[in-house]
């Protein structure tokens, strides 16, 4: 066994709809080490959330299909688990924080009870012990007057406080993997920073591995060790934080970074958007899904989907530009330059990081 706590191999997820089967996730691979943070970034509809929910098997059974792939947790394939075994994993080994704290807590149940539920389910605690532990959790996530707040209802909390409660619920049983599905998207910026700081602090304390789903590159820069960029249900590029930010090799990653405001650049410089919109998963052809929007397309891109090319030991890209048969002069300079700087990127990044990428 390797030292990966979570491994997703060639995962395919599709939904049954009236118009036939629609693939939402098409061959996703990634892995996660203990205590590490992997960010999965991508636009809406790129399959990030579906990937996250399929790890926990929280997608509706009736219309979801996982025709291929495996999700290995500590070496065992979760997709082969029985319903009961999955329920034992949920909340205790792997737990999840959801996007909208306003709706992810039961409005008619006291906060304390909502935290205690998982505790009595997994840790076989008595009511009194569970309550004590629930109180500790509230304190841990920074909710003042925890004892009294156990008996409060969700509507008596603000959005940021509720997200703290959701995090408390998720971490109550000391999970080894935390999947955070856009945990700060619904919060305002100052609260975002607090929640991120909280998650990082708890991660250090508990040595939890985090899968962070987001479309906010600022959050990624702040939290992630490694990054997987998703597009149209595929991971198009994967690498360490520095590799992705300083030497992106996929035109889509490059586009994402260029469309993000940069505090160092002069304010008059316009952002460069990626033209077009993501493809409809129901009508994807055989070619690269990004071909229609890519500024560097070649003939081959429209007909064949490229496979992974390893750029370094940690960075892999799915793009024809990386193929050795592609003439060197066709590869745009930014990508070529990125490739050369790949080795020194780490040092470079360390210096830049001191300046800090703003959250």
């Amino acid at each position: 066994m390797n030292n990966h706590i979570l491994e997703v191999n060639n995962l395919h997820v599709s939904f049954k709809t009236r118009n036939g089967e629609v693939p939402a996730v098409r061959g996703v691979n990634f892995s996660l080490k203990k205590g590490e943070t992997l960010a999965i970034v991508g636009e809406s509809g790129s399959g990030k959330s579906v990937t996250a929910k399929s790890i926990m098997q929280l997608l509706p059974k009736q219309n979801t299909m996982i025709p291929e792939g495996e999700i290995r947790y500590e070496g065992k394939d979760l997709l082969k688990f029985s319903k009961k075994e999955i329920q034992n994993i949920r909340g205790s080994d792997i737990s999840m924080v959801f996007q909208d704290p306003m709706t992810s807590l039961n409005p008619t149940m006291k906060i304390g009870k909502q935290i205690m539920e998982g505790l009595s389910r997994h840790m076989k605690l008595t009511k009194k012990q569970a309550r004590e532990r629930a109180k500790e959790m509230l304190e841990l996530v920074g909710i003042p007057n925890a004892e009294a707040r156990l008996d409060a209802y969700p509507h008596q909390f603000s959005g940021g406080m509720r997200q703290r409660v959701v995090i408390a619920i998720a971490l109550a049983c000391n999970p080894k993997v935390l999947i955070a599905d856009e945990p700060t998207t619904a919060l305002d910026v100052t609260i975002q920073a607090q929640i991120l700081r909280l998650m990082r602090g708890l991660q250090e304390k508990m040595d939890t591995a985090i899968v962070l789903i987001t479309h906010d590159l600022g959050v990624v820069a702040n939290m992630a060790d490694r990054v997987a960029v998703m597009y149209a249900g595929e991971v198009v590029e994967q690498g360490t934080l520095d590799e992705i930010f300083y030497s992106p090799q996929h035109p889509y990653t490059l586009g994402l970074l260029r469309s993000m405001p940069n505090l160092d650049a002069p304010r008059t410089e316009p952002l460069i958007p990626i033209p077009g919109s993501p493809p409809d998963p129901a009508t994807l052809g055989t070619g690269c899904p990004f071909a229609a929007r890519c500024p560097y397309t070649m003939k081959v891109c429209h007909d064949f989907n490229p496979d992974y090319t390893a750029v370094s030991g940690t960075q892999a890209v799915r793009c024809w530009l990386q193929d050795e048969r592609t003439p060197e002069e066709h590869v745009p300079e930014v990508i070529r330059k990125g490739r050369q700087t790949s080795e020194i990127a780490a040092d470079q990044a360390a210096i830049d990081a001191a300046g800090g990428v703003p959250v």
Partner: protein
Amino acid sequence: MKRYLIQRFAYAVITLFIIVSATFLLMQLLPGTPYSNAEKLTESQRAILDAKYGLDKPVALQYLTYIGNLVQGDLGYSFQYQGRTVMSMIGDRIGPSALIGLQGLVFGTIIGLVLGIISALRHNTAIDYVSVTIAVLGMSIPSFVFAALLQYYIGVKLGWLPVALWENYQSTILPSLALSVTVIATVARFIRSEMLEVLGQDYVTTARAKGLNESGVIWKHVIRNALIPVVTMLGPLAVSIMTGTLVIEKIFGVPGLGEQFTLSILVLDYSVIMGITLLYSALFIFVVFVVDVLYGLLDPRIDLKGGSKA
């Protein structure tokens, strides 16, 4: 809370006052008199009768007298039955209505809940379609059709239960069943849609993500939240069904309030019409109030303190 109760009580009194006044006025507009064979009475005979019942006085004075008596808890005497108070007539008649109504309500609610919940949990399966069909049929087919079917098959063909008349407990079963059909249909449809809505909520996913088993998720998180709105619907339904329904009482020969009410309108028994209308309204207002208080207890988001405008 106290302030809220007082406020609600005041509103209730005002509402009742308006209802009483409106009913009184509308009754005056009805053609005819409370006397049978009125056309055969001579002028002087009529004058004597009018004087006896106080109908010779101006409408305004009659109205004030009625209100005055009402405030003292006196609903007056029946025009139809010599010497009987409206109070005692209602007392005699409400028992059977309330009994079959209550039985129909309890039975219908239980069956409706079970049907609706199963239907929601097996959304878009054969079971769901069957129960939706039952609900739609129950809503759209009038209850007297079911009453007639029950009488024919269970009463006549099988001979298990009496076809009609009010003799022993057995006589209450068929009318209760006939009444329950509407309740089943209404409750099943309502809880089904509530359940489907709650099942799609994020907090249900949170509950699943905690590792709770499916029955724990359904019982603790889904059903409780789906039941809260059902309370709002059940209150008024209970009033309308327990205060007697004309058709069912007529078909099964139940000596209930619904039958009495229709009769009193036909013969213009003013004081009885007033009395029963008042009873309906008062019960309705009371139940709506109870539902509101109950809602505050069931749903922590609703706070009855501070006399809000809700």
